[in-house]
């Protein structure tokens, strides 16, 4: 996210120069404030001189508002004037500020430049990419970048006549790839039959896309028919019984959800073998997660041992799965802004309700639990509070009881 790489420089106690809104002066004046609390991109600020008085504290988005390091006003000829509510409290502001500020932290001198730079993205309009076909998950299609907001791309499928057949995803989504990717790994691809040529089209360079880890497929590897557990791409609330349907090149796998597969495999879905959305048999049981059995399974309760025997299949070896758990720092109850991956143009107010290793259960505030989604802690679809304000993206507020339908 923007500012992510230098967020460690920002903490409670850091002093900044910010507009002074407690003044009768007609010109813009500034004053020094302390960050007393952080919540996502938002900081609760208290002007110097208010001591323990929180009555004038104010929230400000560090990626949006004019926030400067201490010293910026002097360098830029801007006046530092104490707020009028406390002007009378001190007869020597110079001595007061020297005492308050000596030895404390301020922002880096290039803070504004870094904020600006961190909101630039390499994708531009009219770049061509390969993206999953939202109506046939088993194949990709060519789409054009139509819009870029905060690293999120609005892609329009190349054949769309009126530009309305679109798909939103983050530029680091595992659902988009450079042109030629499908052919290189053996993935199904729907060729576009485009009648008119658009000027200015370019294929997005491959270095712009998410890199996946190299894997060694030469030894023990996934094989067709092996069973596993996988997040259902059509219902991200559920982890389901699934099967490896086809082994592709470069570590990619086509996965089918048992009991709900179309006969022609049109709803198989491509996951990389290192994907945090696929798990070895038994993952749900070990972690006390309800595993969704195959639709129509008529011998509940579902038992893997019996099912493997009944289907004459074997479980994919545990050693082939991604077992890395980043020290992510997420905690249950934390609020964030999260993409509704069933409607990926929407970024919503959400809460983390459960954490299983690297997997987060995301609850969309105001909605029933059945709409919760399992999301990886490193997903590019999770954002700190205030991200929508920083990027100019519309935030979906919590659903009101009456509008849930």
């Amino acid at each position: 996210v923007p500012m992510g790489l230098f967020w460690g420089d920002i903490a409670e106690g850091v002093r900044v120069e910010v507009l002074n809104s407690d003044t009768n002066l007609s010109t813009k004046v500034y004053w020094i404030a302390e960050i007393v609390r952080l919540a996502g991109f938002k900081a609760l600020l208290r002007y110097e001189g208010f001591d323990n008085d929180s009555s004038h504290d104010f929230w400000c988005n560090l990626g949006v508002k004019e926030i400067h390091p201490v010293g910026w006003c002097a360098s830029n000829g801007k006046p530092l004037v104490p707020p009028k509510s406390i002007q009378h409290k001190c007869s020597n502001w110079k001595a007061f500020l020297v005492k308050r500020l000596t030895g404390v932290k301020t922002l880096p001198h290039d803070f504004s430049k870094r904020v600006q730079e961190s909101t630039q993205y390499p994708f531009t309009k009219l770049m061509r990419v390969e993206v999953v076909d939202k109506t046939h998950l088993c194949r990709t299609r060519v789409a054009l970048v139509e819009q870029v907001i905060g690293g999120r791309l609005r892609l329009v499928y190349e054949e769309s006549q009126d530009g309305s057949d679109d798909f939103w995803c983050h530029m680091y989504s595992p659902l988009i790839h450079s042109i030629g990717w499908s052919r290189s790994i053996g993935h199904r691809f729907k060729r576009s039959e485009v009648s008119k040529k658009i000027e200015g089209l370019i294929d997005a360079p491959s270095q712009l896309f998410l890199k996946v880890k190299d894997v060694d497929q030469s030894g023990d590897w996934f094989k067709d028919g092996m069973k596993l557990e996988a997040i259902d791409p059509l219902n991200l609330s559920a982890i389901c019984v699934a099967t490896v349907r086809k082994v592709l090149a470069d570590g990619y796998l086509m996965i089918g959800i048992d009991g709900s597969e179309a006969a022609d495999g049109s709803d198989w879905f491509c996951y990389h073998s290192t994907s945090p959305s696929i798990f070895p048999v038994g993952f749900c049981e070990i972690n006390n997660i309800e595993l969704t059995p195959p639709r129509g399974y008529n011998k509940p309760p579902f038992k893997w041992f019996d099912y493997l025997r009944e289907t004459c299949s074997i479980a994919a070896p545990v050693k082939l799965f991604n077992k890395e758990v980043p020290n992510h720092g997420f905690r249950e109850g934390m609020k964030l802004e999260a993409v509704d991956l069933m409607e990926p143009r929407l970024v919503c107010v959400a809460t983390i309700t459960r954490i299983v290793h690297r997997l987060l259960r995301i609850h969309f505030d105001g909605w029933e639990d059945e709409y919760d989604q399992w999301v990886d802690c490193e997903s590019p679809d999770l954002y700190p509070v205030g991200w929508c304000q920083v990027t100019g993206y519309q935030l979906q507020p919590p659903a009101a009881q009456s509008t849930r339908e």
Partner: protein
Amino acid sequence: EATGRKWEQKQVQIKTLEGEFSVTMWASDDKK
């Protein structure tokens, strides 16, 4: 450390209606 930045002491100029002065504060900067 991971971001390639480090904290350094800096002389910071402040200019109020009472005049200009400097204080020593900490600010992070790119590692040279």
